[in-house]
């Protein structure tokens, strides 16, 4: 088994950026696709509506509940398992002065504390006096390729790592047009003396382009630059909807890839 070098540029619970070196573009794309389509998450799939006198149809409520991210514990459930949730909210009574009561995702009661709404403040439906919503819902563990609501990753993508090299000085009368670049750059030691704003560039230092407002002329004023893609180095940007942490999402995506590779090896073995 080959080891890969992984370096984090930003790391949070729901959003992260990391650099992976020495992987092929095909493998990078495989990881991306596995994160989107192959990591199962819980999502409401079926409703048993007891009472719905709100302004929305049962199906519309069902769609909204399906999109609410639910926390998914690792290795506790199998694909196809269900967890029952319930929601019971009533519109304002006569004595209350408010005009509407809103049912939030936080009002959902779960039968299993491991599976609960990841965000509490998502409005499901506004209820007027006399209106009521009472239902039971089955959340199913399934994969993103079955339905987009089961995707754990949001806007998952990658870019080449880019290397910026200073090749010379800009001519005195050259246009000072902005040089826009997005992603993460790797700086070179040769640029050391020439840095404009921000920290001093060290060899191989990774700088997200936000640091200089995506404009290379801010970081290297008056320099003639050459930007090249670093071969086989990819910067992943991963965001999750809250059902899993970034760490869980990435490791489970890689595990699913490995699982399928091993299955293939076993299947073709003589």
């Amino acid at each position, binding site marked *: 088994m080959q080891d890969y070098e992984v370096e984090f540029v930003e790391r949070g619970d729901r959003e992260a950026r990391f650099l992976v070196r020495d992987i092929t573009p095909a493998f990078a794309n495989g990881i991306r696709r596995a994160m989107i389509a192959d990591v199962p998450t819980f999502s409401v799939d079926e409703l048993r509506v007891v009472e719905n*006198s709100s*302004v*929305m149809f049962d199906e519309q409520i069902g769609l*909204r509940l399906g*999109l*609410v*991210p639910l926390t998914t514990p690792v290795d506790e459930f199998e694909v196809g398992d269900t967890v029952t949730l319930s929601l019971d909210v009533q519109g304002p009574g006569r004595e209350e002065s408010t*005009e*509407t009561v809103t049912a939030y*995702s936080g009002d959902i009661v779960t039968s299993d504390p491991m599976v609960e709404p*990841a*965000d*509490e*403040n*998502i*409005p*499901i*439906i*506004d209820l*007027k006096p006399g209106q009521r919503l009472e239902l039971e819902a089955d959340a199913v563990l399934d994969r993103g390729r079955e339905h*987009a609501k089961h*995707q754990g990753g*949001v*806007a998952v993508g990658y870019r080449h790592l880019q290397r910026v090299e200073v090749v010379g000085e800009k001519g005195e009368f050259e246009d000072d047009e902005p040089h826009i670049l997005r992603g993460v750059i790797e700086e070179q030691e040769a640029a050391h003396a020439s840095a404009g704003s921000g920290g001093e560039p060290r060899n191989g230092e990774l700088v997200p382009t936000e640091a200089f407002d995506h404009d290379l002329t801010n970081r290297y004023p008056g320099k003639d630059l050459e930007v090249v893609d670093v071969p086989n180095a990819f910067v992943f940007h991963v*965001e999750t*909807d*809250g059902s899993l942490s970034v760490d869980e999402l990435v490791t489970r995506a890689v595990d699913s890839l490995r699982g399928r590779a091993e299955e293939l090896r076993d299947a073709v073995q003589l």
Partner: protein
Amino acid sequence: MMVPVRCFTCGNVVGEHWEEFKTRAKEGDEDPETVLDELGVERHCCRRMLVSHKDLVDIVAPYQ
């Protein structure tokens, strides 16, 4: 009618930010741009979900 739970384009959960965005930017006098930045709604696909939304429940409710 109600604010969409997720962004149509990227699938990010935007519904949870609606009420704060409404009180601060739509009803309040803060700049929508800074409010969205502070809420962490970064991409323009997610931003348009909140900027262009109008609650219609109050308008529809009498015709039940």
